[in-house]
């Protein structure tokens, strides 16, 4: 510009006729060259900036995976000890650009070398396609990603994706649930707490489950199912004082990473959604009803010599003693006849009221949506009272039955089950305790349950030092023509230590087949009780129960005072 002004002044100073068209032309040339000079200077500066300055500032390497999509992650789910059950991770997904792969054969061979489960022909077909984007593999592990990067093929790239990872796999799959590819909860806690989890945040959702107990339950239940060639099973461990569900298993189960690959049978939650006639375990309830409503004496005697005939129904015993039984004897031998008589004595309305108080008539309240509705007789006749007293004609979910029995074993306070570690306090402060049976009845029932394990059908659940108490159950499944004697549901509900129980264990095995070892028996006492015993043996050190052999000796055992009602021989 300066030169232009100087020039301009000079031509202003010029005098004479020569000043004219020529000067005008010269001025235009100067203006144009100045403009171009400025333009080139600008380009030079910019080039210097981009090539030298920016290069030195940007010494970082561009990330090889596209940056995070931003936002918060779906919240974690952890167990009561903080062990991860579900977490959303950023994973790399591998795609290929076939246009940039000159040699598909060698690339395909390398890819198959990293992912052993891919077939060479499939990968080769993918890489030979004509489009510019093909997915090779979604959601790689860091090791796989490292291996692919090490191959160094330019046509392979990654995209960051989010996927829900369940480190414990199938272990608690039914309760934790799973999500779809977009991260929406489809089952279990993932579904019922979908909004809360989707909001994200730092705080994980802590469940009441303890993954160690979950593993013990899963291990022993799987072993029982395998041993007895059963179709499936369910089990639960709960803290009967707080209602915390410490473990809950439904078998067969599935991999929550790929729920679609398992069939609906595996995804079905037998523990809280399936309803079953659970059989003799219900005698805990009918006996408690008799003790509570009729104040029945332990010396009360039931005639179990002949099957009971009521109209066209006939009630017979599975373990027939063919004699007159006292109340403790009828409980420990699991006499259907005595239970039917108890039901008759208690009366239809009183028994229905009692079962309803136990929460057996309505769907259980739990923090997942897979809750089964109990199946009751459409019209409750007198005979239904008799059958309901020994657990037939009424179908409930296994966890529901367990929770109702826990309410009796813990001293008579109704148990509100929960899957959350920090149960939110309901409106109106703390939940008031609801008494379902008196302390006295609860104490009697503990003694009876202990007796059923020391001397009765549940003998195989007895673990020295832990004073296990419980009740076995063997129910026949309904076949095409009435009850099928060969298709059973064997169950055991147990608590320990029986003088002050804190933990409850429930085991149910669906259609077990007797083995040579069990002399062909597939009843609750032969299938479920030993399984529950093994579970208790393994879990007792974890829940802090020490074996106490002094307390188990004669005279101090909870069942000791009932022994005099038992007549041997005859």
């Amino acid at each position, binding site marked *: 510009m300066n030169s232009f002004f100087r020039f301009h*002044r000079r031509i202003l100073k010029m005098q004479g006729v020569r000043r004219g068209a020529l000067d005008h032309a010269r001025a235009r040339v100067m203006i144009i060259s100045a403009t171009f000079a400025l333009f080139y200077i600008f380009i030079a500066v910019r080039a210097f900036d981009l090539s030298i300055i920016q290069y030195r*500032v940007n010494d970082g390497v561009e990330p090889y995976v596209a940056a995070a999509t931003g936002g918060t992650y779906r919240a974690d789910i952890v167990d*009561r000890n903080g062990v*991860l059950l579900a*977490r959303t*991770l950023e994973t790399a997904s591998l795609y290929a650009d076939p246009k940039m792969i000159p040699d598909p054969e060698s690339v395909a061979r390398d890819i198959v070398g990293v992912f052993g489960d891919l077939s060479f022909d499939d990968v080769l077909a993918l890489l030979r396609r004509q489009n510019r984007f093909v997915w090779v593999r979604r959601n790689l592990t860091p090791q796989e990603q490292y291996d692919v990067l090490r191959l160094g093929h330019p046509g392979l790239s990654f995209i960051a994706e989010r996927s829900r990872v369940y480190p414990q796999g199938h272990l608690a799959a039914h309760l934790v649930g799973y999500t779809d590819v977009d991260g929406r909860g489809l089952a279990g806690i993932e579904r019922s707490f979908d909004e809360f989890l989707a909001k994200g945040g730092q705080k994980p959702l802590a469940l009441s489950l303890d993954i160690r107990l979950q*593993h013990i339950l899963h291990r022993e239940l799987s072993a029982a199912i395998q041993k007895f060639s059963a179709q499936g099973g369910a089990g639960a461990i709960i803290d009967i004082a707080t209602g915390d569900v410490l473990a809950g298993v439904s078998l067969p189960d599935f991999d929550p990473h790929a729920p679609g690959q398992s069939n609906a049978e595996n995804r079905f939650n037998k523990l809280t959604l399936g309803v079953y006639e659970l059989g003799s375990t219900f005698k805990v309830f009918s006996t408690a009803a008799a003790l509570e409503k009729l104040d029945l004496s332990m010396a009360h005697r039931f005639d179990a010599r002949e099957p009971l005939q009521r109209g066209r129904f006939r009630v017979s015993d599975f373990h027939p003693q063919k004699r007159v039984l006292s109340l403790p004897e009828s409980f420990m031998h699991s006499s259907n006849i005595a239970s039917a008589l108890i039901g008759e004595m208690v009366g239809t309305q009183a028994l229905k009221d009692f079962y309803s108080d136990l929460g057996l008539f309505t769907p259980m309240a739990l923090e997942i949506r897979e809750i089964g509705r109990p199946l009751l007789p459409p019209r409750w006749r007198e005979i239904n009272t008799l059958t309901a007293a020994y657990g037939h004609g009424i179908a409930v979910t296994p966890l529901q039955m367990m929770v109702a029995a826990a309410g009796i074993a813990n001293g008579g306070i109704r148990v509100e089950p929960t899957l959350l570690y920090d149960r939110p306090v309901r409106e109106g402060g703390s939940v008031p305790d609801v008494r379902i049976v008196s302390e006295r009845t609860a104490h009697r029932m503990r003694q009876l349950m202990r007796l059923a394990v020391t001397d009765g059908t549940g003998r195989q659940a007895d673990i*020295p030092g832990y004073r296990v108490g419980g009740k076995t159950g063997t129910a026949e499944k309904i076949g095409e023509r009435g009850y099928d004697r060969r298709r059973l549901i064997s169950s055991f509900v147990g608590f320990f230590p029986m003088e002050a129980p804190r933990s409850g264990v429930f085991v149910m095995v669906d259609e077990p087949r007797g083995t040579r070892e069990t002399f062909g028996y597939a009843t609750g006492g032969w299938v479920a009780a030993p399984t529950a015993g093994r579970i208790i043996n393994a879990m007792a*050190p974890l829940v802090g129960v020490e074996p106490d052999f002094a307390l188990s000796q004669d005279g101090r055992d909870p069942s000791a005072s009932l022994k005099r009602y038992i007549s041997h021989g005859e």
Partner: protein
Amino acid sequence: MKIVSIRFVFIVCAAVSSGALLFWTSQSVQKAEHRLAALDRAIQSERQAIRVLETEWDYLNRPDRLEVLARDYFDMSPLRSEAVSGNFSVIPDPALPPVMPSRKPSMAAQPVSTGARAVPPSSVLPAAARPSHPVAPVRPDASPSSSSDSPSRDDFRSLLEDLTRQPDGDG
């Protein structure tokens, strides 16, 4: 007429220096922004790595895997009730150092799970996990020349031996 006035020189100098200052400032802002972005990226990737590693830790600590490892390498089995004789309270508590750093102590205090009792009896623990008091057995194969070493180093050696012991050695 004076071609270059003082005022003109001053204005030119001011323009050039303010231009340079502006350029320098903008460059340092850009540099700082790049650094910030790089640090953010690094933090983000560290966080990612931590999340992945935490998940991997819990994956590798699956109870079924630990059970197999404990059975195969430590010759441990679940505690049977008969194996416990007498009363826990009469045994002096040696305050066992944790075999493995416990995680998330804030959540460790549970109403039902008492961590201390879950520790197996000290006889099955490797020597290094035991406190070095006179009750601890002295390994006969420990060479006396290493007596100058601190006892903790001996413990560490015997732990290494325990850990690297081949299964065929004891059938």
